[in-house]
């Protein structure tokens, strides 16, 4: 401890830090003066977070249902009524069997329910009856989900009708053996989608900016030849790289604070159950690690067009496969293995842990350590390449 303070106070290290500070300030100025870029930073962390948080629905909503009712009795009408919003949208009745497929072809509706003649009679006469359901599975996930809801509704309706007939249909105090499932959804009891989607979007934006801004900034110096000027100055390559990362980290942390406390908490009521300090500290670590990927790309690229393509090549899989858009559990094993290289895969657990679950370091440390190790490796490798190029 004593030695560290001494080192910090020695004139050489002081100059070292001062130089780093000057360079960081230069980077920040360069960033702030790019007005179109700043406008998009502001947009991405405010309006864009709002639009995504309020707009994205991942659960089944508004699935268009067409009905070909060949019976038109009380039972069929009652069953149709059970397909209700927000899950289903009644798109009208059909007057022929072929019309259904034609309407599905046009993609206006998602399902066709075909109720046979004598539906009511069969149901009340104790016969078993088949109903047909046509489902558009062009989008397989949506189609399966709609089919699942629909068969559940039909099954429950049938069972109730049958049990009512024999006088045994009181579900609240069943006089028959039955497992009553009682769900408790934790951390987000009402399953408010805006919480998840706005956090996901924030992480998405942090990732894009953290990887691309420093990468482009570094390659720009290479492309313009200004990096030669920097290298003949008393600055070390490490300082040149670090100053870029520090400047971008500072800008991103401020933007994150604006998104969290200006949009997500007041508008959507996103909870911050854990420590705010820990959240920002780990966000900084995440930005640092992700920036390491950008710097690595920057050391491989010769111009900004190349670095843009390289970083995008890595960013798109990170955004789609790290678990912020679709659950990681769904992914094949090799994707999950590949995503061990994505800092976002760790940070999503950290962000959800701190914000929603109120978790602290005792639970989150494995994620934080993995992320830090990844960051050091990326940074170190990028540094090594960068040094070798200019020697």
């Amino acid at each position: 401890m004593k030695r560290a303070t001494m080192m910090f106070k020695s004139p050489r290290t002081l100059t070292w830090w001062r130089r780093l500070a000057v360079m960081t300030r230069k980077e920040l100025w360069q960033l702030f003066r790019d007005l179109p870029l700043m406008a998009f930073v502001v947009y991405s962390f405010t309006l864009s977070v709002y639009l995504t948080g309020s707009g994205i629905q991942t659960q089944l909503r508004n699935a268009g249902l067409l009905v070909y009712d060949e019976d038109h009795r009380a039972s069929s009408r009652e069953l149709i009524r059970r397909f209700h919003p927000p899950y289903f949208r009644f798109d009208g009745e059909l007057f022929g069997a072929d019309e259904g497929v034609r309407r599905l072809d046009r993609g206006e509706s998602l399902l066709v329910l075909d109720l046979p003649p004598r539906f009511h009679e069969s149901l009340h006469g104790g016969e078993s009856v088949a109903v047909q359901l046509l489902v558009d599975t062009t989008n397989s996930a949506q189609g399966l989900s709609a089919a699942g809801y629909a068969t559940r509704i039909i099954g429950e309706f049938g069972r109730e009708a049958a049990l009512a007939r024999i006088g045994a249909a009181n579900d609240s105090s069943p006089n028959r053996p039955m497992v009553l499932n009682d769900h408790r959804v934790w951390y987000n009891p009402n399953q408010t989608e805006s919480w998840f989607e706005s956090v996901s979007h924030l992480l998405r934006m942090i990732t894009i900016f953290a990887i691309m801004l420093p990468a482009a900034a570094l390659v720009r110096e290479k492309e313009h030849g200004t990096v030669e000027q920097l290298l003949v100055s008393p600055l070390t390559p490490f300082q040149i790289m670090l100053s870029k990362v520090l400047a971008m980290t500072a800008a991103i942390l401020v933007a994150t604070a604006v998104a969290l406390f200006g949009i997500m908490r007041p508008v959507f009521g996103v909870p911050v159950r854990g420590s705010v300090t820990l959240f920002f500290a780990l966000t900084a670590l995440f930005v640092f690690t992700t920036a390491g990927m950008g710097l690595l790309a920057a050391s491989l690229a010769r111009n900004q067009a190349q670095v843009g393509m390289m970083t995008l090549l890595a960013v798109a899989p990170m955004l789609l496969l790290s678990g912020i858009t679709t659950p990681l559990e769904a992914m094949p094993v090799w994707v999950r293995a590949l995503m061990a290289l994505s800092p976002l895969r760790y940070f999503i657990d950290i962000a959800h842990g701190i914000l929603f679950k109120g978790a602290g370091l005792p639970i989150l440390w494995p994620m934080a350590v993995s992320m830090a190790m990844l960051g050091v490796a990326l940074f170190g490798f990028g540094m090594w390449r960068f040094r070798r190029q200019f020697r």
Partner: protein
Amino acid sequence: MNLRRIAAVVSKEWREVTRDRMFLLLAFLMPALWMIVFGYGLVLDVENIPFAVVDRDRSALSRDYLHRFIESRYFDFQGYVAVEEAADALLQSGKVRAVIVVPEQFQERLSAGTGVGVQTLIDGTFPLRTDITKGYVIAITAAFNEELLITHLARSQGLSRRQAETLARPITPEVRYLYNEEVRGTWSIVPALVMFTLMVSSPLLTALGIVREKETGSIYNIYSAPVSRIEFLAGKLAPYVLISMLNVIILWLMALLIFKVPFKGNPVLFLAVSMMFVLSSTGIGLIVSLLVRTQQAALIITVVVSTVPTILFSGLLFPVSSLSPTSRFLAHLFPGMYYANVCWGVFLKGVGPEVLWRDGLALVLYAAALRLIGYRLFTKRPRS
């Protein structure tokens, strides 16, 4: 318009693109690589949800009930937990996403013919996963209940098992899946990926190509050359349109040969609409490049205005019909949704212009509008 001058711009631009080997390689590698990674990797059907169990009853019937979860491919059993507090910690660390708590007297009460409550604790951080988990739990419990009910009815009402079954399950839903009869995830995702990869890669190619001239100052050669605005833009964009069209064909072949997705529609229609889409997506790159000065800004802005809306609003992951009204409106502002509809239409549905004309027309208008805006924005007399 002078064709020779356009040809000159094209050849200059083409040479610039092809001489940057890395850039050229990435321009073709990126879409193909993404097609492979996302085509195999982007699975949307949630399975293997990790869960733990607190079994307070430890009876034959409780094991029977829990086995339905343990053996289901939708769940991934992580083990028994003795107390609920330990389950809390597992949920909090994200090691499990659900915990099923079976109470004491589970078997006793069911055998006595009464209801018994089973509690399921579900991690709510990811509403989609929560919803799907809930759905699986409901479905498995319903199947178990049906079994109980059949046995119960057969015994109490003195019915044969067959009669009891009819009583417990009077309506049989016969589900028929259309267009993707075996409900294969890859068939759904691959046509949409043709849209996604192009929508993300081609605006970036274009934007970087034009801003580079602005940033390095070589654009001043154009300002002082006799080439007119329209000639310059046409020639400048041509290589990027060509690269993107080649990518359309590569992705198309990949979809057919590697992923074995059926192609039921008209190839000419597909290529024509793809051309309109490529003109739209490169148009976005053009507009961005005319508004900014640095490649850094062009890079970020293109990603923010093309990649992000394409992930969110194109229908690739979230069906447009489920979005909120505002987002549905936003979805209509980006070309991705229209082209995704066309891709699904020609690959899986086999529908023709009678259905797809609206999407095609939207893309034509989009391409034309972007060109017009680009033409108005581009000036050979910069203000500063």
